[in-house]
């Protein structure tokens, strides 16, 4: 199935002097899917993107993007990718339209086609009104949208987005997500880096959790969550007097001691069997004729996943940790 792999990196290592920015990362992105590289500042996300976009040579390892080796055929790679770097790299002294036209021309489009393409993209990214305004006076969100438009000028097969929404307010972030989701609909392959778990969960098929230059976990949001102990079943009872009874049912079904929270009349227990247990709990509650306000199967949040994963790396050896996830 290697023909359908859009981005593949093997054993990527990057050292800057004594500092190890990447300590051997493998990445494999199937065509038409979205992979999020999730990690805190300094985890090596940007370094990875720079290597995959031929902006930086790996110290060790090899990367093939769109079928071309980034080390030996960087121009072939550049022709097929779009990169939105962390700081929007649109030119602040040029207008939105001038920026896009310039980039289109540098992609070897004829001048007239380039202008038309710029106009169409500005329209598509709701920037038509600001087309002839100097980018220096754009808001952060507008600048990011323009930057994204710029990466799409030449219809790239693969998009690299380095922290596309960092520094944006929630509304601008939501707007950008919508734009990205329309791109996903078109089958573009996307590699994005982010510090936001919510963003990775919403946009990505696959998530690589990186810390200190190493991948400490990978999988989709669901499987990552499962790594930190599965789902939780929660019950909120109507009658506080019967909370202990409900907790006992939970404990019996899941085989784990339920945690009771009296003020909110709730009992919670982790469950490895998930939905199966949920159905059993529901049945037992009905049989006992126990009125319930809420019954839910809740996944741990990605924040909890991430804290568990990166919290342990501070104490444990990296290899040890990776081993425990296999």
């Amino acid at each position, binding site marked *: 199935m290697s023909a359908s792999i859009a981005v593949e990196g*093997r054993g990527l290592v990057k050292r800057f002097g004594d500092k190890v920015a990447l300590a051997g990362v*493998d990445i494999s992105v199937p065509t038409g899917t979205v992979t999020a590289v999730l990690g805190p500042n300094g985890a090596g996300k940007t370094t990875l993107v720079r290597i995959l976009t031929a*902006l930086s040579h790996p110290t060790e390892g090899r990367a093939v993007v769109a079928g071309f080796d980034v080390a030996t055929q960087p121009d072939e790679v550049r022709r097929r990718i779009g990169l939105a*770097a962390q700081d929007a790299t649109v030119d*602040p002294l040029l207008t939105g339209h001038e920026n896009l036209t310039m*980039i289109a021309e540098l992609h070897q489009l004829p001048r007239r086609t380039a202008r038309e393409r710029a106009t169409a993209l500005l329209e598509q990214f709701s920037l038509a009104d600001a087309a002839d305004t100097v980018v220096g006076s754009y808001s952060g969100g507008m600048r990011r949208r323009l930057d994204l438009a710029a990466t799409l000028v030449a219809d790239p097969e693969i998009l690299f987005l380095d922290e596309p929404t960092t520094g944006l307010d929630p509304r601008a972030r939501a707007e950008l997500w919508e734009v990205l989701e329309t791109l996903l609909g078109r089958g573009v392959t996307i590699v994005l880096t982010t510090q936001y778990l919510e963003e990775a969960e919403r946009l990505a098929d696959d998530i690589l959790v990186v810390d200190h230059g190493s991948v400490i976990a*990978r999988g989709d949001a669901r499987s990552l969550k499962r790594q930190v102990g599965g789902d939780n079943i929660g019950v909120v009872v109507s009658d506080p007097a019967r909370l202990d009874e409900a907790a006992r049912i939970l404990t019996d079904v899941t085989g784990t001691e339920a945690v009771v929270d009296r003020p909110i009349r709730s009992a919670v227990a982790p469950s490895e069997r998930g939905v199966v247990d949920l159905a059993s709990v529901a049945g037992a509650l009905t049989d006992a004729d126990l009125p319930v306000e809420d019954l839910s199967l809740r996944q741990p949040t990605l924040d909890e996943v991430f804290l568990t994963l990166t919290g342990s790396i501070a104490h444990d050896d990296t290899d040890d940790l990776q081993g425990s*996830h296999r």
Partner: protein
Amino acid sequence: MTSTTIETDAEPAPLEPARTGPHAPRGLVHDAWVLARRGLIHMKREPEQLSDATIQPIMFVVLFAYVFGGAIQVPGYEGVPTARVYREFLMGGIIAQTLVFTAFGAAMSLANDQKNQAIDRFRSLPIARGAVLGGYAVANILKTMLPIALMSITGYLIGWRIRSGLADALLAYGLMIAFAFAMIWVGMLLGAVVGSPEGVTGLAFATIFPLTFLASTFVPTAQMPGVVRTIAEWNPVTTLSDSLRELFGNPNTPVQPGDPWSIAHPVAYTCIWIVVIVAVCAPLAIRAYNRKNVA
């Protein structure tokens, strides 16, 4: 659900062999021109960037003409009013100095772009190698037209005249542009190697500035003491100044029998420098730029 479990990389599939793609013809000239237009828009939007090409040369012409004008005697023109001779003598030198300073402007524009990441965008585009620097070179050459024109006009207003024929005058202007082109590549090399605007300013003041004074720019070399005079006589800034004076038919120190070859053949000597500077600095600058940005 098993499909979503953590990937085990026990048996990695081999990396897909690299495709060999067709190498589309690369439009260095086209790409450089697109980027040069960007540079020109910058100048239009931020006219204060141009002060080194506008206000400064005019100010220098006026200052030197009126402050030093009466004090410096050009050998061979004793008897003619000193100030009038000096003003015409001055023009060749001050134009030469301004052209040397174009290196500084070129270095700054490159350093600024490296600072604000614009370079990363260009580097992620499939553009011709050298196009980015070529674009700077073209934009800066066009920018150089401005001080050349302004100084010609200012010079005319204070009494400088072209006293030679049309062919010589055109040759003089051609030499100016060629020299500016060479200096722009010096600036590119400086900007690519140093990288930061602050570093460029420091280095430029330590090197470019003294170079323009250790020359016949403002004072005839004949009046300089031993070693300084020798350095000045072989300094291309001297020979450029002398070339312009000669080609415009302006006053210049007459060539003596014992003068070095550079002083006797200023135009040829200057042209050699131009060729050597471009041949050395352009490839080095492009290499330094590419290397620096693939760290």
